């Protein structure tokens, strides 16, 4: 497979996972606007912008994400617009789906026709939509529909895409993005709570909703929300499809199916995979930070191994 196509599929997986994660976050957030407390609403915005490591629009020069004062001068509409339709924001929902679609277009000969049609249809619905239309109709419905489109794409891929190398790269991209977003979100939540020196059950409960883990939590623990148990589930339980541990296991399993890349990077890459899964560190923050560093290294090794390798060692020898 062409290195460029493998790279496109890797980033297709990453961008669509990023989009789905943000769509779920925003869906959750706009629901809080209906009847939740001002504290909870601001917490939610803080958590999203901390997750993305982005400054909200209209933020002052000395804006501090974890400050206990009002988040920003901007209202919910402006913040949601910034995260949904703002074309100049590379992490907005619109930008992520556009980038995902562009990567699919570049590697269209490597994905199934059904996958392309599914993603293209979703894009055609989204591309010209204006945020005021979303906001005045039903933002909850919009985010729900967007998430459904993205899940439909993943489902379509699962049943139609030939399990060759392209599938592996797309899955690695998805899982790596999911792991990084989960780490970022959880560390943000822990940092906010630490800064504010308090924690509310509602904030941990909302995480369970985000990760579709509420039933799993109640099944494993109880109806009473305990932050340590939430973290245990979201970080360490491989049976939860959206947990960090599950994502790490997918990364390791899919990389094992890929052919040997550039020899020097390949060895280091496989060694890192062996360290990724099954970290027995009990302190969640430390475990998350360690995983973050390893995943950043892994991303670079993937690029060096298969996409952007030096060609000198690969040129055939010629006599004479």
């Amino acid at each position, binding site marked *: 497979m062409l290195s460029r196509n493998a790279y496109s599929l890797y980033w297709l997986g990453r961008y669509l996972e990023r989009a789905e994660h943000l769509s779920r976050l925003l869906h959750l957030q706009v629901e809080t606007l209906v009847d939740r407390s001002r504290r909870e609403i601001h917490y939610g915005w803080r958590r999203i912008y901390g997750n993305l490591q982005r400054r909200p629009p209209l933020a002052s020069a000395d804006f501090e994400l974890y400050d206990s004062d009002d988040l920003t001068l901007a209202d919910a509409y402006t913040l949601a617009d910034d995260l949904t339709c703002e074309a100049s924001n590379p992490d907005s929902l619109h930008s992520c789906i556009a980038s995902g679609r562009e990567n699919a277009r570049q590697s269209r*000969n490597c994905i199934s026709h059904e996958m392309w049609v599914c993603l293209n249809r979703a894009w055609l619905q989204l591309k010209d939509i204006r945020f005021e239309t979303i906001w005045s109709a039903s933002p909850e419905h919009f985010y729900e529909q967007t998430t459904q489109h993205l899940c439909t794409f993943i489902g379509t891929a699962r049943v139609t895409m030939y399990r060759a190398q392209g599938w592996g790269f797309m899955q690695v991209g998805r899982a790596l993005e999911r792991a990084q977003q989960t780490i970022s979100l959880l560390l943000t939540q822990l940092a906010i709570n630490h800064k504010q020196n308090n924690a509310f059950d509602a904030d941990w409960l909302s995480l369970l909703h985000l990760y579709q883990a509420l039933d799993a939590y109640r099944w494993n623990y109880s109806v009473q929300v305990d932050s340590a148990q939430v973290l245990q589930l979201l970080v360490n339980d491989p049976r939860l499809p959206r947990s960090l541990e599950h994502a790490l296991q997918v990364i390791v399993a899919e990389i094992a199916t890929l052919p040997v*890349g550039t020899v020097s990077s390949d060895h280091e890459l496989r060694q890192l995979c062996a360290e990724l899964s099954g970290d027995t560190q009990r302190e969640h923050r430390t475990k998350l930070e360690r995983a973050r560093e390893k995943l950043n290294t892994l991303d670079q090794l993937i690029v060096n191994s298969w996409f952007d390798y030096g060609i000198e060692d690969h040129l*055939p020898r010629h006599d004479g």
Partner: protein
Amino acid sequence: MLQQNGKPYPHCRLLYQTLQQLSAEDVTDMQQRVARAFRSAGITFTLYGDGETDERIIPIDCIPRLLTASVWQQLEAGLAQRLQALNLFLQDIYHEARIVADGVIPAEMVRGCPKYRIEMRGVEVPNNSWVALCGTDIVRTNDGFFVLEDNLRVPSGASYMIANRRVVKSNLRYLYRKCKVQEVEQYGAQLRRTLCELAPHGKSDPCIVLLTPGVHNAAFYEHIFLAQEIGAELVEGRDLLVSNACVYMRTISGLRQVDVIYRRIDDDFLDPLVFRPDTLLGVPGLLHAFKRGNVALANAPGTGVADDKSVYAYVPDMIRYYLSAEPLLANVKTYLCRRPDDLAYTLDNIAQLVVKRVDGAGGYGMLVGPQASDAERAAFITKLRANPADYIAQPTLQLSRSPCFVDGCVEPRHVDLRPFVLHGQQTRVIAGAFCRVALRAGSLVVNSSQGGGGKDLWVLGD
């Protein structure tokens, strides 16, 4: 479809009956289904302007154009003859140039043509297939079929030929079955066979790639489609490199040698070491690898001299010269404005003529005399006087018309057709074409970039 007495031709009778049974609502639903299918599948071409990118579908009309098998056989024979002569011409002018020495074509017409590539002189091409793929634009008038243009560099439209067929067939399935239409689905297999026949050293199972300028090219959809149809890797210049006169592509498992390149990049952008040095689309050293016989290029560089609009006027002479035969397909009468007599005629009759730049494409830069304003004609006369050798003129043809669905009704529109001819060790012509239609009432411009649409062409079975 209709004879002068208003009755359908025998081979169009079934189509006529089908159209009569369709209501305006049926027609509108059908057209909308087709447009949605094309848009969902991304069967688009891209227009660029004002810093924005616009992906558009080529509007497809669902009423097929019908040709009988006997008519098609005549066209097929004419197309094959024409391509054979063009290949012999290219082989000749890049070697002994006998046709010039014998005074059939003026030397300045060939050597002065900007598309004549000195770099290709003396180069041997497998099977003498300088042109392995050709798309010939044909029009029909009351006097019969005429060739409007030979597209010998990067002819496009084959993917739309197949895409149109698939969608029209599914919407008119009963009629399709009754008409016993000849297939076009084997185009991909035939194209692959042709490309394999170009492989260096007769290599069996060669590595074939389709070289595209990339996702921003107007015809990118076609590049993807054809790459899939022929089982080739779709590559850009940045995926390839040349080492020791061999071409390699960068894969996840290292470098893999490439044997045949079906290139959809113009000569100018093919190799920065030889042609335009500022291009990022091409592959440095590609021409050197080609000349060494380590990679085949379809079509070979330098074929543009043969689809220059001035050289076009000499194609019938080429057929007589190389094949000792009369052309089976006629040219449109062409006035070469580089000739004083032809220039004088053109200036005197510009209101009745179509005037084109010899290096023009896409329907741009031309004047349709009968439809132009006095000011437009005057402006063109100025250009003609300044650079007559840059222009040709042709009579305005009364192109045949074909029924089309327009706003729920059936109306006639002008059409042409572009069949595709393949030339490897043998010549292959698919029984079908990309049929273009001028959607605006009265317009003669069928080019998709200027609002033209497409139709399916059905070559009926015997």
